[in-house]
């Protein structure tokens, strides 16, 4: 069973814990919360164990026990938040895109004119939208990736059935994003 070990000093706290309970991002996030009040150091304390050291910037007014408790609570909160965010990523993106898109509104003429579109980039076509189907999935001289993506064996005539690769359908979030920009 893992345990969390806490060592309190005058204006300092050292907490050691099993990192399998807390993703690295949670450890970073929790430690960072103290960066205005403390000097923070992370270290390994053995296999799969992390030690966080907090040293109060103002030792005379620091409450080490309170820092320790806060850090433990923040670790839990950060870990849980990462889990919730991961499960609800689409919801977060959707709400955020809608809020920012609604607030920002469409770009004005000045902004469109200021966009980095010139002769070199104007005809970039990363998704191959402007390309004809035949050109994209040509029978002869096509790359092996294209033929695999086509999903069937090649034949010598146009009647060979080809299965085009799956094209991702824009999600509502993406649509809002398109509107926003």
């Amino acid at each position, binding site marked *: 069973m893992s345990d969390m070990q806490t060592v309190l000093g005058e204006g300092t706290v050292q907490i050691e814990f099993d990192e399998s309970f807390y993703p690295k991002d949670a450890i970073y996030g929790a430690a960072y919360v*103290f960066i205005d009040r403390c000097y923070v150091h992370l270290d390994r304390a053995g296999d799969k164990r992390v030690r966080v050291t907090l040293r109060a910037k103002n030792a005379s007014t620091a409450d080490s026990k309170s820092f320790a408790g806060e850090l433990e609570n923040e670790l839990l909160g950060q870990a849980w938040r990462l889990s919730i965010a991961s499960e609800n990523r689409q919801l977060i993106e959707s709400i955020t895109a809608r809020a920012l898109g609604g607030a920002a509104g469409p770009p004005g003429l000045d902004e469109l004119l200021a966009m980095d579109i010139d002769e070199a980039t104007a005809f970039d076509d990363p998704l191959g939208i402007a390309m004809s189907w035949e050109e994209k999935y040509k029978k002869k001289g096509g790359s092996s990736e294209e033929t695999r993506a086509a999903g069937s064996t090649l034949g010598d005539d146009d009647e060979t059935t080809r299965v085009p690769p799956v094209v991702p359908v824009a999600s509502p979030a993406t649509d809002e994003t398109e509107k926003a920009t």
Partner: protein
Amino acid sequence: MTFVTLGQKPVAPPDLVPVRFRDVAGDVLLTNPWGDWTFVSKTEFADLTRGKLDTASELYTRLGDKNFLRSKIDADKVAAELRHKKRFLDYGPNLHMLIVTLRCNETCVYCHASRADMDAVHTDMTPEIAEKCVDLALQSTSPAITIEFQGGEPLVAFDIVKHVVQYALQRNRAYGKELGFTMVSNLSLMDEEKLKFLVGHKVQICTSIDGPIELHTKQRVLVGGSSYLQAVRWIEKINKAYIDIGLDPTLYHVEALLTTTRDALGKPREIVDTYINLGCRAIFLRPVDPFGFAEKTRAKIEYDRAAYRDFYRTAVEHILDYNRRGEQVLERYAAIFLTKILQGDDPNFLDIRSPSGSGVGALAYNYDGKIFTSDEGRMMHETGDDSFVIGDARTATYRGLMKHETVRALVMASIREVQPDCVSCTYAPYCGVQPEHSHRTQGTIFGRMRESTLCSVHKGIQDYLFEKLREDDPKTVEILRRWTTVRERTHFVHASAAS
């Protein structure tokens, strides 16, 4: 060592939608993700956790009527209601706070770090900066804009106030917004000429009243005078001026705001009596907040939020008593939450919505042109924390402000439905917490709600309101419903056609 058997793993009836639950008033309050609510007895709740729901029962019918059963939900209707409730997402900031000066002639015990002495003229907003602020505000995607004058004491920089009003009205001819103005003032520098302008240009006036005269004058020091008597004198004059131009006094009157300090906690009834005697129809029982100067005087004025909750209950009971005797007066916090709970609507109070209004609902423009996601963000700037600066009125573009990474971070941090604790809180559909508050008190814009004083206040208020709804006294419920009725103050709106 004693082992406690936790019992069977709960199993919900398959037809039940995801619910959150909380013990309230001896029963169990259930809410669903779209804001419907119902009470069930503890026995009924225990049955639900064992997957039992008799389709012939009254409970089944009730749950079906309130969108708690998948098989009975009209998904299109619920989706439309949710879209309506969250319509504020489609619009940018409607509230634009202009801090026209930091100079102030009063010294208030809880004052935020936005006050300078009367000779600090360098803290007056220049006309050029004021115009830039108005230009940005009018570019908001919100069809309705309110420009709110704050300070310091905005009457100190009245020339700038006048300039902003006139400039905004003129510029709005091109934008066509529904434009409104409000001013938060201690009223001690008011005179007939200023009053004539403000009333003539439909500027709504708000002031602070901390309670009975002795409490107010102790907390709000006006050198050479009584801050309370001055405020009351002008409240009466302004209210009379509204009557003189034919406005309904029950709708048009000076709004007053309370900041509940430690000294106020022992006087809930006296504070309510004071407000009602002044003709106020709404009382906003705001707890003290942690920004600015208030931090330095925290030892004198701060308090445990349990004490605030007791104060709140006593004060609101007293307000309800007035209502039962025929006085029409509401408590603002309650009205905000009840609008969501009883009407299924959102009044768009920026500090109690998800995501919060930081940046996307409101902007604060400091006298020097710096722009902030909120007035709280601006107050933190005054004490050295620039986390919430997002631009300068002289150089910023509107869309640039809305696309600022800080605005994005605050939006994401304030989506309550996906934050620890809020994710399983019964009040998540109605609640909201300002991320700047969490940053100030806990060092993180996400916040740890169990340690948040704001969360504690919001939970306390909602517990109280749901207790009242559980009691289901018809007269009380009728009063609470009436508090959700919105009577638009159309007089204060400069409609676009008229600008």
